[in-house]
């Protein structure tokens, strides 16, 4: 068990009941949930570890140049400023003060423009910043990459 996994497990056994509150009967129920959570967190930690250790895209990342985007109004199709995509997504879509109503970000680009590589890199960066339960707040996301093709 690595350090992060250890923290995850410890946290739930030790602190969950105080965080969730409730009477004795409720506390027992919460404890059984805590065990599940502990198992889940261990899986999250392992996944994070696997993604961060993956070296299959090392060559591509060595040549990586941050993609730029224009902010784009879906109705007027008017273009505004140019941003670094990563910064734009982290501040406007996933930022700590982001709009909770924002659910979908559509990322388009020509064939070979680097959509997949960007996504893989974004996932790594998000997971790198994911520290597990003791520091979990609304600004922390757990990114799961799903290749559909």
């Amino acid at each position: 068990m690595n350090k992060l996994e250890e923290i995850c497990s410890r946290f739930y056994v030790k602190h969950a009941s105080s965080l969730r509150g409730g009477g004795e009967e409720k506390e027992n129920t919460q404890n059984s949930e805590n065990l599940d959570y502990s198992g889940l967190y261990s899986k999250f930690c392992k996944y994070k570890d696997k993604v961060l250790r993956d070296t299959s895209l090392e060559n591509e990342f060595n040549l990586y140049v941050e993609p730029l985007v224009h902010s784009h109004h879906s109705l007027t199709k008017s273009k505004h400023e140019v941003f670094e995509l990563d910064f734009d997504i982290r501040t406007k879509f996933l930022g700590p003060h982001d709009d909770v109503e924002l659910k979908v970000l559509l990322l388009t680009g020509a064939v070979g423009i680097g959509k997949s590589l960007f996504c893989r890199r974004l996932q790594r960066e998000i997971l790198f910043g994911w520290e597990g339960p003791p520091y979990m707040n609304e600004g922390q996301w757990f990114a799961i990459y799903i290749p559909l093709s």
Partner: protein
Amino acid sequence: MAEAIAETLERELSMTKEEIKMLNNRDPNERLLPQFVFILDGYDEHLQDIRIELLNDKTDYMKNNFYAINKLGEHWINAKFIVTCREENLCYVKRKDLLFAPLDEKFEDDSNELPTAASRSFLQRRIEPFSDEQIDCYLKKYSFVNPGANLNPEMKSWSCIERLNKMIDFYQVREYARVPLLLWIIANVLPGLPLEKDKGTVQSTALNKRFFIEAFINQMIKAVLKQNSALNEATTHDETQAGEEEQILRKIKDQLQHLALRLSNYVRSNSVTQTQDKKMLLGLDPLVCWDENFSEIRFRHLLFQEFFVARSMTEEINELTNSNLDEKSNLPEDLLLNQKLLNHGASSYSIACFLRDAVRDGKIKAHQLLSLIQLSKQTDRSNTSRKNRGKGRVYDKSRRARSTSNR
């Protein structure tokens, strides 16, 4: 999509069905579980099932809405979704927000008006092609990562970038160089080509994407062959052995072509069944890789797969029009060009572009295409597919019912 998410959670995170169910039914205010952002890369294949040109009214959008049909609001209420798509596959969609964002619930009434996306629920971003500065930055990294690769090893890094930039302009490929994947291919191929300054007789010729990918693939295969000790010896010997190398090159390309057709769901009934030389193919690392999720060899980038599909089509057109001009009844039913509509679908645009380049490069002559249309005009008019080919269209058998009504 919900299935794809569940499968990934099971496969990548070893989650049980119960755990996934628990995450689906979580209390939205639960702060002890992480907030998920799902990055769904390559939604293009799913767009194949949507008749984008007919997305006009409320029902069309509601029936095909990404968020609604996948019940994401029910199962993953706190999650966010980043969905990637090729630009060209969405260029005919007038209201991308209505195709992807959660729809405003109040529009689920009987009015005929278009629905609206839930307020502030949707963002759209388009990755811009590289600027000249980004191209320079990329080339700088490239020359650092590949010191002296195909360039003069004595040349300083900045001189290499300058020379590559000159060649990009000389061969009129700056627009291609704005696409990172193509820039990588160009940076690999260009140093092997002559520059005006080196040879006064060399004319500036506009090179196309097909040329670069073909040259890059040849270069990759030859590099692998060189590593093979037996063939290393061959290169130092006589012409027979050089011919042998050509033969092996051809064999490897055939295997890659076969792989591309299979992965793209094209069927070639008359082809000789080939045994896939996995070890050899996996040696072509920048081209193909082992996909653990599907437990099979796949192309590292879909563009290579599409290149080989177009290459197979080009070869087939050449074979057919060169040999069967007088045997009109022999036009095979499973003609590759005839298996899928090339005006619709994830890979259609790229394949069509490669075919266009093949015509421009003279790999297919215009008269051969006309012959193909002439050949397809013949025979039984009751046969739907042939009737459609007679109109010069490619036809997708798997979409026969739908396409027929559409036409």
